[in-house]
């Protein structure tokens, strides 16, 4: 996994909380900075893709490891 600037652990949270928390964290970050999100909600995989597409923030990486979903999002 590439380097990141900030981390958000959304484990145990269900839709739509991981997206809402990510959005909130991204709002406090500068453009070009990278946010690492950890989630356990299986729906978050599609949701983060859709979130990136609609907000213009880039989803650089999306992966799964032992039931945890990891995302790298670059703030637009």
């Amino acid at each position, binding site marked *: 996994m590439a380097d990141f600037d900030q981390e958000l652990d959304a484990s*145990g*949270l*269900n*839709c*739509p*909380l991981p*997206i*809402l928390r990510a*959005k909130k964290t991204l709002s406090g970050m500068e453009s070009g900075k990278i946010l690492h999100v950890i989630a*356990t*909600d299986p729906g978050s995989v599609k949701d983060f893709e859709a*979130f990136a597409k*609609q*907000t*213009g923030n880039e989803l650089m990486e999306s992966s799964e490891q032992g039931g945890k979903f990891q995302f790298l999002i670059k703030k*637009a």
Partner: protein
Amino acid sequence: MSAEKKLAIIATKGSLDWAYPPFILASTAAALGYETQIFFTFYGLQLLRKRLSLEVTPLGNPGMPMPMAMDKWFPVLLTALPGMQSMMTTMMKKKMKAKGVASIEELRSLCQEADVKLIACQMTVDLFDMDTSEFIDGVEYGGAATFFEFAGETDICLYI
């Protein structure tokens, strides 16, 4: 970017289960950059109370999954027994907490933080003699014309 998009929701129901769709959709839409408004009318006004006392009921709701598969064998008439509603509400809240589903209070305050406009139907407030001091701060009051002023320009308009 979709900064210009708009979503309008009419929230008409005042039960715990039906409180979720308007607040989930509105908070998510706001996170996606939508300008969002919810118009609360009739029983939907219950969702604006500072102290929420929302419940779910198995009564007349054949689609509701119940513990021990009671929805399959439990006589429908008995779902009207005193205490059933509060029991089902307690169980539902417990399950939601265990599954990491946000509370209505949390989703509602996330909506407010994200500048989702909450409008209460003035006519219903008058009809039911509701005490607006029991509603959360930041609620605006208006009627059908107020709703259309925004709804007429939206990309998505939902009646829940």
